[in-house]
């Protein structure tokens, strides 16, 4: 139930607080974005029709590299 799916914000309607979010698998949905500060082109986590957080793209891209670094450091210790 706490499942949340990442998608890309395609358009935002500031009046209604809703955005069109593209999930990258050919599906897109109208999502309430009133709980986040998000811009078109950014990624959000969507849960039960609401965007609950903006995904940090840089962190996402660096995750594996960071893991590798942590493991290496521990391995050498």
């Amino acid at each position, binding site marked *: *139930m706490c499942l*949340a799916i990442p998608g890309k914000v395609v358009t935002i309607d500031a009046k209604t607080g809703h955005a069109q979010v593209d999930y990258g698998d050919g599906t897109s949905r109208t999502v309430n974005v*009133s709980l986040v500060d998000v811009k078109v082109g950014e990624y959000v*986590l969507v849960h*039960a029709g609401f965007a609950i957080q903006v995904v940090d793209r840089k962190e996402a891209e660096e*995750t*594996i590299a960071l893991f590798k670094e942590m493991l290496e450091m521990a391995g050498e210790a």
Partner: protein
Amino acid sequence: MFELRDKTVADEILSQLKAAKVKLRFMHVCGTHQETLVRHGLDTVLKKCGVTVSQGPGCPVCVTTAREIEEAIALARRGYTVASFGDMLQVPGKDASLAQVKAQGSDVRMVYSIEDVVNLAKQHPQKQVVFLAVGFETTAPSTAAVIENGPPENFSILSCHRMIPPALQAILRAGELRIDGFIEPGHVSTIIGLKPYQLISRQYHVPQVVAGFEPLDVLMSVWMLVQQVQQGKAAVENEYARAVNAEGNVKAQRVMRQVFAAGDVAWRGFPVIPKSGMFLKPQYAAFDARKRFADDLSVLAGESFPEPQGCLCGAVLRGVCASQECPLFGCQCTPQTPLGPCMVSREGSCRIEFQYQKK
């Protein structure tokens, strides 16, 4: 960008875990973590490395009490429209589930979002529309946002929203299980941030890692917990930094605080957990189904609602019993004939176990 698959990293984690020669028990409190663990066979692999990961009370559908389900059923039978998320409809009540009550002619709706319920209320102004609002801090902000926005006057909620940190404390206080660390739920944490966990680490000296939901997230969080145990640390670390920041979603916290007050509430399998429930504040009483329909619900006063006979969901939710240890698992109790909520919910450990392993 969102898929986290790298076999060499997974292998390195497992080889370091093996070399550590530990014997530890961690707990997670999220059905989606349970799914990742069982679906990818990580529970078995980790056990071979000396790490047992137990499931705690991390399924909102499962921890909703029999009384709360009876409240919704009573309102549906009374002729009101009752709406909730899919799995809630299948949870067995005393003599029927909401789905069965619907089959008997009551107006019960399955919805994807609370906004669907608001629209329903707008379309049918002559009907009373009640939302059975379940979910942890991931879900509660959406309910709060709708209430703060002033929904239609014929809309109300039965709040069954609950908070995770008080449940963690209840588990540690009860001391039924030795827990060497918590894997904290990533999506609850997108909202609440890290601070609520830090208080717990200080008070109980327990390591915690906030984790994402890819197999590598879960493996890495276990590895981080093991590192902490070996170094004698009890810190809160964040493995899921791509979605969770230290302060959490401040907007969502604000609206939750605005609309809800913390109150004592029982969880299935648990006695009352102090300040773990989210109840509408007095200024929103007009949208509180328990107040609006107090007369209709008074029939439930004084009644007790025992667990389905033989069902061990309570023990499963406290992490003291695994699903396969339930004698009914896979025979009398299957996803087609569920006896308890843990076999109903896609986040329930019995359902997940059945789906991926069978008995």
